[in-house]
């Protein structure tokens, strides 16, 4: 197979206070895949994400993005290639207008003028928020802010989009709208979540992170129907949800 977009090998990390969060994680994501990263609270999901764009430096092991190792020298290019959408849009949207916020990433990469403006509108268009370009982010609804947060990252034309709990705090309609948007994007996706139905809906493949280790990697459907695996790692389906009874959206 070609060079994986994301290649994590033997990644281990301990926080400065001594708390070991990751114990040798191996993960490969290939071009065009949509992968769910599942795991209970405190499994180390966010710690893993912060390694993908070089915010944290591995204690052991390595991370490479499309063959480019994540190191201090490469960090700027890595951050262009890996777009992280954080959980709280208020953390991500900090500029006085939606336009400035979406422009922030590409402008940091040196883009200016008309090309920048086009990139901004194009990214907002992809998430259906183009008409809000002049609004201040804090006047938008939560679902709209989440979509703008996705646009801020799309504007950098990343090779892989990493979403941290994209469905949290969304009402069912916003949740579905976001799913439609994510499905329509032509980009490799790593979705960190404990919203299992959402992972089943969007990600053909999932990996399970538990206590700092990858304990399962396979088709999302197989993982969610493996009751022994699920209960061993504190993964529970919401009440009334049966993956066996769901008609999966056609792979796309």
């Amino acid at each position: 197979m070609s060079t994986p977009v994301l290649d994590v090998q033997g990644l281990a990390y301990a926080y400065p206070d001594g708390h070991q969060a990751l114990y040798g994680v191996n993960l490969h994501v290939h071009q065009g895949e949509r992968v769910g990263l599942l795991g209970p609270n405190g499994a180390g999901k966010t710690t893993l994400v912060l390694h993908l764009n070089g915010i944290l430096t591995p204690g052991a092991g390595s991370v490479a993005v499309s063959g480019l190792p994540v190191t201090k020298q490469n960090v700027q290019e890595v951050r262009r290639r890996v777009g992280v959408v954080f959980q709280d849009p208020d953390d991500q949207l900090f500029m006085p207008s939606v336009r400035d916020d979406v422009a922030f990433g590409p402008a940091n990469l040196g883009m200016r003028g008309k090309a920048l403006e086009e990139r901004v509108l194009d990214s907002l268009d992809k998430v259906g928020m183009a008409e809000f370009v002049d609004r201040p982010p804090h006047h938008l609804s939560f679902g709209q802010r989440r979509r703008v947060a996705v646009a801020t990252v799309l504007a950098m034309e990343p090779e892989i989009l990493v979403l941290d709990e994209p469905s949290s705090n969304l009402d069912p309609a916003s949740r579905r709208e976001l799913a439609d948007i994510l499905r329509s994007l032509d980009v490799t996706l790593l979705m960190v979540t404990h919203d299992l139905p959402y992972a089943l809906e969007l990600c053909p493949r999932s990996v399970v992170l538990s206590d700092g280790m990858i304990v399962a990697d396979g088709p999302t459907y197989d993982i969610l129907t493996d009751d022994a695996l699920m209960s061993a790692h504190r993964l529970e389906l919401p009440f009334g949800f049966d993956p066996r009874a769901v008609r999966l959206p056609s792979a796309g």
Partner: protein
Amino acid sequence: MGAGHGHKLHYHGHSLIHRLPAHVKIVALLGFMLTVVATPREWYPVFAGYLACLLAVIAVSQVPPLYLFKRMVIEIPFVVFALLMPFIATGPRIDVLGLAVSEDGVLAAWGLLAKGTLGVLGSLTLAATTEPRDVLAGLERLRLPNQLVQIMGFMVRYLDVVTEEMRRMRVARESRGFRATSITHWPAVARSAGALFIRSYERGERVHLAMVSRGYTGKLPRT
């Protein structure tokens, strides 16, 4: 330029004053204020002239006077202080409406009130006719250090977020039967303030993380 969803202090419009470049307005306000403050308070007619200038600017800006007047409540603490001055100050006494008040105090109160009111009205006019982001851009054009402009920008952006968080914490406190009615309740309020500070600090760290993730290197790009 804004879509009419600006800050609470901003009054949307397209007048000449609205359209003036922000840095011109900032310099004008600063110049105006320095002149007002430097004017000896006994030059009464000059202050009338200042007020007339300001009112003329407001008239051109088409911001309703009532809109500005309501926002002038911010000055009340100073007004209270000014009104106390004639009674507190020492020196020769004069009779005003049968009350013996200090002559120096009356003069000081007049000075404070006149200069303060002109300042507040001038600042409100700037705020009403200029979007916060334009004020920041103007300050940047005036070569204010970039870091200071960034800090102010974040203040504008997160003021509402932090206020809302404070409100939620108060609602949560009161939902559990707490009302700050006596001094013995202050420790709880103080602890809330501490929690708010820590939350805001942590949010600052998360925001920084999100910025760094999008290639931030210490300077906001000029767009």
